[in-house]
């Protein structure tokens, strides 16, 4: 999958930063779970695309595409995924997996809602994985 330039991703994902320019103090939490080098600098990070079901626990990334590989566009699975918040540009983290066959998966979207889904549905979500240096 070709790496699209990061500017095509919606710019909403700057957590911990104030939305407006007023003087509301920002809590700079160094232990925030987002990688701190959160700039769209594609020399510093390699963005690798994978199916959501292939992520390991602790991996995170941005959704690049939501499309059911087994059906045409606009299928029921695609709709349900979109409805639960799996939309292009959302930040996802793989949290937990089931113990039998690593199914179902628990994923956190945009650091707010946690969603459980099966591998079969997760296959429809393509994620640009953030591969950090320490791996």
């Amino acid at each position: 999958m070709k790496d699209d330039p990061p500017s095509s991703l919606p710019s909403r994902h700057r957590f911990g930063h104030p939305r407006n320019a007023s003087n509301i103090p920002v809590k700079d939490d160094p232990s925030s779970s987002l990688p701190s080098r959160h700039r769209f600098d594609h020399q510093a990070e390699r963005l690798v695309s994978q199916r959501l079901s292939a992520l390991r626990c602790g991996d995170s990334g941005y959704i690049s595409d939501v499309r059911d590989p087994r059906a045409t566009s606009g299928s029921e699975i695609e709709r349900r995924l979109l409805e639960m918040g799996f939309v292009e540009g959302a930040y996802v983290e793989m949290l937990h997996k089931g113990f039998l066959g690593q199914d179902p998966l628990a994923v956190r979207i945009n650091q707010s809602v946690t969603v459980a889904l099966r591998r079969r549905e997760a296959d429809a979500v393509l994620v640009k994985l953030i591969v950090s240096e320490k791996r």
Partner: protein
Amino acid sequence: MSDADVLPASAWRPRRLTPAQRLHPWRVALVGGPNSGKTTLFNTLTRSRQKTANYAGVTVERKSGILVTPARHTVEVIDLPGSYSLRARSPDEAITRDVVLGRQARETMPDVIICVSDATNLGLHLRLLLELKKVGRPIILALNMIDIARRNGCLIDIEAMARTLGVPVVATIALRSSGVKELVTQLDDVLGQLTQQALQEGRAPAQGDSASPSTWKEPSVSEIRAYHQEIDQILKTAILNEGTPERFSRQVDNVLLHPVFGFLMLLAILFLIFQAVFTWAAVPMDWIEAGFAALQAWIGSAMDDGMLKSLLVDGIIAGVGGVVIFLPQIMILFFFILLLEDWGYMARAAFLMDRIMGGVGLNGRAFIPLLSSFACAIPGIMGARAIAHSRDRLITIMIAPLMTCAARLPVYVLLIAAFIPNTTVWGGWVGLQGLVMFGLYAAGIVSALLVAWVLQATWMRGEHQPLIMELPSYKMPSAFNVMLGLWDRAWVFLYRAGTIILTLMVLLWFLASFPGAPADATQPAIYYSFAGMIGRALEPLLAPIGFNWQIAIALVPGMAAREVAVAALGTVYALSGDEEAVAETLTTVIAHDWTLATALALLAWYVFAPQCLSTLAITKRETNSWTWPLFMFGYMMALAYVAAFITYHLAVALGAG
């Protein structure tokens, strides 16, 4: 949380409604996601003035309550099934959509819609509000769980949000009065405006009106994406500080959803629930039984013998006792279900069980109801309410009676003691009697899974249901919610199901008592009763499976409950005395009178046969129709007959005849 924080009852709810208030209340619908705290808000608004019924023709429950506002508006609040969108993905969500759009039979369109959103997950919940705006009704947005958002450091500019959205926004904490009072004040404003509008147009208020036509239609995928963009924009302006995401739930889940440890915790919790329903409930059940027996004895000694006494003592009091005795198990089971759901653990349990149960097409949340069916299917069938999806709920209800319930044990014990020798097999390791008992349990479970698979593959085929479920953050359970929920379930059971069960019990008593034995009777009285006639009429049908006329007659009063079969057999064989004495003598009598093949056939029969009217009655109540209990009766009878037939002839062929 002190009592002062909860709304005082005297504040704005007068005890009695005037006739005018009762006739034309305003209708307000509570719409929101499944984990938005909507039901808690409903409970706080309406407290004990709640009514549970069913929507016409479907299994979905209708929860409504009455609220009288400070401005003296009488409001009927309806708690609609949780949904993330007006697009219906299940029959329950279809109800939400239909009621909101005014399409539901016998429901008028709501006057005002209160959209309840989880303030910590606005990205997910706001889309519903955008869809509701297209419906054309006045809306109030309640940002629920605002305390959790604030605790995470999230600052929301409520005015900015109200301006951008174009609807009034109120921040609420469902159990605290502060936000809820503001919500009701806002509601008063809206109702005031509606009244003005009605008066200007020359109509009586709250009687339905010419609403602006709804422009809602099911969003396509591109429209859903557009909604997400729109929500992003709204949140950019309205959220001043996103705060840090909550860590506690994630840390707890690292333990509770751990592949090994999480599963062990689940087993521990399930074992605890099972113990509670099976063992702890036995104490109050014994009290109830003793209480009713004392009542029977007292009335029995105070009255002369005769028809009226028999009706009162053996029919009505026994019937009422037979209903009330289910209460401890139901209360205990629902206590755990409501607690776990409020806390947030139910979703985790469904997550862990999904792989196992999804294989046969069952919902992960079906596990607890099915587990408690090992004690008694009645609370299990009621507990299926925890499953949000109609079809999954129906399948769970249909297979719950196949789980070997405690009432089957007296029958199993009787037959095993009489016919299975007390020897060991496999080199002295395993007792034969225990092995047979285990086999019977296993037969129940396996048949339940098979029936579930067949049902979901053929008749009840719905669309493939993907599991996409929110795992809510952990929250402190509310004692208020749990108590209200328990009260609601007890009422529903006693009033709705209890009346049916009582009627059926009295009917059975009648069949077993009339007509009495003639003067020159050679057989016990039951032989000459209607029950006896039915049994004798059934005998030729039951002969191919090896049942004699005594069994045939005993099965008729045995329909009351499974364990009654032992007492019924005792009556047919003219044994008298207390339960244990009868059972002991009975063991010897049938050991002489029956063949092994007959006994095995009867065991197989009892694995499947629907010998429990209470189960059928509760199924009627939970499914809101007679079709499903009749279907349950039919398929279980068919399975019982076939199983007994095969067992009998196999046993005869192997020389046990």
